[in-house]
């Protein structure tokens, strides 16, 4: 389909405009058109959580949204959470507690954890496991991920 749809949105605080094919998914738009490859493409049907981003302050699967639907939205990706020089406290906790091995699921995990701690600043281990239940990790066995989120809470770094 040759026609495109014009969109204007905010990504990690920057306003931008683009013309996208109607079928372009949000995650492909972020990765291929904007070069924001921190958001990963896993299962492409909403199961794995690797493509999780924030849309207007709520986590969503960016593989299940079309870029055209993000017109007017405020999108935050992992690149908007912390930088190499200044990691977000959750990222620091993940690093310190070995909550990642290959790192494929990590951007999605961090965004899911951010939302969890915003809505529930002092979650139990069970609540952390349920809150992150929509994000699959094939390496860690989750123990260290839960530990890292708990540590971020005890350090008062939940935001």
């Amino acid at each position, binding site marked *: 389909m040759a026609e495109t749809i014009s969109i204007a949105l905010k990504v990690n605080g920057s306003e931008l405009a683009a013309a996208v094919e109607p079928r372009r998914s949000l995650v492909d738009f972020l990765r291929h058109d904007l070069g924001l490859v921190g958001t990963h493409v896993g299962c492409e049907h909403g199961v794995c959580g690797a493509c999780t981003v924030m849309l207007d302050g*709520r986590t*969503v699967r960016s593989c299940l949204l079309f870029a055209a*639907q993000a017109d007017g939205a405020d999108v935050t990706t992992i690149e908007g959470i912390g930088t190499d020089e200044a990691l977000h406290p959750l990222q620091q906790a993940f690093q310190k507690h070995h909550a990642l091995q290959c790192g494929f699921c990590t951007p999605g995990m961090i965004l899911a954890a951010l939302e969890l701690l915003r809505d529930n600043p002092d979650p139990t281990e069970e609540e952390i496991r349920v809150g992150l239940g*929509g994000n699959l990790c094939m390496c860690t066995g989750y123990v260290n991920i839960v530990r890292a989120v708990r540590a971020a809470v005890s350090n008062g770094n939940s935001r």
Partner: protein
Amino acid sequence: MGLLQSYRDEAKVLAGGQSLVPLMNFRLAQPHNLIDLNGVEGLDTIEIDDRTLSLGAMVRQRDVEQSPLIAERLPILREAIEQVAHPAIRNRGTVGGSLVHADPAAELPLLSIALDATFHVRSARVSRSVAANDFYQGYLLTDIAPDELLVAVDFHLPPADSGWCCTEIARRHGDFAIVAAAVLLGCGRDRRIDFARVALGGVGPAPLRMIAAEQALLGERADAELFRRAGDVAAQAVDPPADIHASASYRRHLTGVLVRRALATAASRVKGQA
């Protein structure tokens, strides 16, 4: 409505996209056109009065989960929603989308059957209401024409003192249920049951109301033995499917267990009872 009428089979309605878009990504669905309801005004209202909770079709599942009003007035709906997938799915997924997708193991269709919901359907030519029991016609099949749209659903509130429980067995939290049960229970004097609703998901092509189990309960005294008997009645009444997730006999077994457990939990939540 005009767009739906002109495209008919050539178009699909896009709500939260948590069922349709996975199907599109697998190329199992290849609609020529999508009509996006996001941004259509007036479809996301939550209204409640003495008798009815009315939800617009585009109310996000997460907003149901986080509504203090719903937690207070229809807690079974909140308990059900918390078992729907995961936060990021519920942030986007809608009440109407889940209801019309009509997965036989999904929680919202199950609740619509348990609570005798009324579906409000509109098209450019007609506006009509359908009872949940008539809306679900078979596997992923509903009483909705290609040019029609579900705009709202009314859940009829159970008696104020009734107990409730929505529970399920799934391989992992958030997965589709193998079997799901939703029950509502009201008790009068001497713990005699004067209101009973028992509905099951995952045991047939569509969610089912278990009238036989309800009849076994009405007028009887609420106790563990009665709940076991009602579970047995339900297990005998269903004709569950077998698939890669579970055999028919395992689903039948779960039916009995879940109905028994759900009734016990609901009975413990009946107000004004010890």
